[in-house]
């Protein structure tokens, strides 16, 4: 089977690494011939993965083409492929703030494309099947290299400061790194904190905070093993692999209830769930873990136990291969429902944008009104000052004083 994976780029990020990993393993499977297209330029991928430019891929014919990341959908639709699939690793419209309305709409439209879907989380499966009953959806779990992320030997330090690893790219608002730093700063018990980012540049300066980044998987494993817990307070996630990796190593996680957290974390077994926007409550939980090493140890043991059934990278690639085989035989989604779905998403975005525009206009009018009021008040003050000056200079007392001053000058001469 000829397969093409369309990626935004080859620079390492969670989503790209998953897709490239599948591509590399699929090539090892008999019967799969896999090309990768990186729209951000041809570069180095995993060993054994053939990387083509889009122009080259457009000259090929594929059985199945798979895109990951919403901006790759147009390229996917232009490939000569019998079936097309969106590999959904998150609901990407949530990556954008309300003021980024065009990006939001673009990402939302990805779920209305005339394609089938592979998803990495059960919550995404529920979302996609609900929104696109006309398309088919396969759950393809994210696997993990179990030989690499093996449990550490010494699970928890018996004493000393609580060693906290914060994972997330600080330049992305929805990763909640500022929230995590706020929580850590409110702790009363002794602790250390390390921020682990994809790109550590421009990390927030916080006293005592170590910042590391750009690590290879084996270096990631080493960092997990050096810490007592992983703190992740994202606002938005798909299926957060760092939680899976940390638990495999035996590091419990303290997390916000972001989407996908409950597919990895079991409260009180392999981690603890804290609330969104509850920095005080989360700090109290970390303080408890700093004091109660037996609890931390139980969670560490539970972390490894709860991951025993998690699929390996090979098992996940096998599921990916099965999904590819199935989708190649599935009927193509009809375009009429997808077009209608796209128009509906546009309508909702337009209504929200219209309200925002009206509110901005209202705010502008309010500011304009305030400026006008201030201008009028200023004019009144100036006029009042002029009137008072006029009244003063035309008074008999003032004129008499002026005459006396002139007389005084004459006398001095």
């Amino acid at each position, binding site marked *: 089977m000829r397969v093409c994976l369309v990626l935004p780029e080859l620079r390492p990020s969670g989503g790209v690494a998953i897709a490239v990993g599948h591509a590399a393993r699929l090539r090892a499977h008999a019967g799969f011939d896999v090309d990768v297209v990186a729209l951000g330029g041809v570069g180095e991928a995993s060993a054994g993965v053939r990387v083509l430019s889009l122009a080259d891929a457009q000259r090929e014919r594929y059985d199945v083409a798979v895109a990951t990341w919403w901006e790759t959908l147009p390229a996917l639709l232009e490939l000569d492929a019998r079936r097309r699939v969106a590999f959904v690793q998150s*609901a990407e*419209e*949530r990556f954008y703030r*309300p003021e980024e*309305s065009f990006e*939001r709409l673009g990402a*939302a439209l990805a*779920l209305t494309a005339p394609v089938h879907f592979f998803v990495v989380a059960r*919550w995404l499966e*529920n*979302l996609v099947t*609900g*929104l696109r009953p006309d398309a088919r959806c396969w759950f393809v779990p994210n696997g993990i290299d179990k030989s690499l992320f093996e449990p550490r030997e010494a699970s928890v330090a018996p004493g000393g400061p609580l060693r906290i690893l914060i994972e997330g790219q600080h330049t992305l608002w929805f990763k909640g790194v500022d929230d995590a730093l706020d929580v850590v700063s409110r702790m009363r018990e002794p602790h250390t904190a390390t921020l682990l980012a994809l790109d550590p540049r421009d990390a927030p300066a916080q006293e005592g905070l170590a910042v590391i980044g750009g690590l290879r998987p084996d270096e990631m494993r080493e960092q997990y093993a050096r810490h007592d817990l992983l703190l992740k307070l994202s*606002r*938005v996630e798909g299926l957060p692999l760092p939680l899976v990796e940390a638990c495999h190593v035996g590091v419990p996680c303290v997390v*916000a*209830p*972001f*989407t996908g*957290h*409950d597919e990895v974390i079991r*409260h*009180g077994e392999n981690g*603890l*769930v804290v*609330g*969104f*926007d*509850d920095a*005080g*409550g989360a700090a*109290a*939980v970390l303080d*408890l873990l700093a*004091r*109660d090493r037996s*609890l931390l140890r139980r969670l560490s043991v539970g972390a490894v136990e709860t991951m025993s059934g998690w699929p390996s990278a090979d098992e996940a690639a096998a599921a990916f291969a099965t999904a590819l085989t199935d989708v190649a035989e599935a009927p193509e989604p009809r375009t009429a429902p997808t077009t209608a779905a796209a128009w*509906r*998403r546009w*309508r*909702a975005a337009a*209504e*929200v944008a*219209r*309200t*925002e525009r*009206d*509110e901005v206009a*209202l*705010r502008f009018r309010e500011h304009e009104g305030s400026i006008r009021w201030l201008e009028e008040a200023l004019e009144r003050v100036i006029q009042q000052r002029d009137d008072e000056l006029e009244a003063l200079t035309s008074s008999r007392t003032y004129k008499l004083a002026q005459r006396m001053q002139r007389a005084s000058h004459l006398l001095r001469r």
Partner: protein
Amino acid sequence: MSIRVTTTGEPRALALAGLDGAAGGPVVHLGAGGERADVVWREGTADGCDGPRVIAQGGAGLWRCAPWPVRDELFELAPPAGRNVLAVGDEPDRSQVSEHVDQLDGRLLEADVLERGDLEEAAVVVFAQPDGRPLPAPAFAVLATRRILVVRTPSVSFGLLPGIDHLSARTAAGVAQLAAATMLHWDAFAAVRAFGTIAAQPHRASTVYARLAGDLKRADAK
């Protein structure tokens, strides 16, 4: 497995945020009162005190800061039969919203506080409180029931994303405009309803109270 937490409080609060099949354990009191409970879960802002642990949506000295959980059975509530908009809040905040709502297919309902019966009747719930206050305590009940939640921009949203899983505007006119738009283009907001239900899942009462029971046990043990 039964969760060892008992919920008490006003019937209205229990109908929205209580726990089915409670079986002993610590007492969590919803709403006003409950000074003898182990935990009081207030509606709105509150301050911590020497008595029970306090949870509220804002305030000083709280044990936790959180909205109310959502009673499990609300996730199974039938979809709205009509296209009614429910405006919830004190006067004059509520009137400021309702006077701007027009172009409705259904009726405009009004209530001081959210009640389960009104929720069953409504397709859209507008919380009319002024902007800059925390998200109302029962907001996630609206999302769990696949209704559209419209609020004036809250100071704290407990993980909700405006324009994704609910709608928000700064002004009364803005929330009224959004409510009217959802009525006029109900199908267009299917994704907002779907994301809303997903956002409500972590607030399911059986999940939240099980977590709470464990947290209380661990906190008291140390």
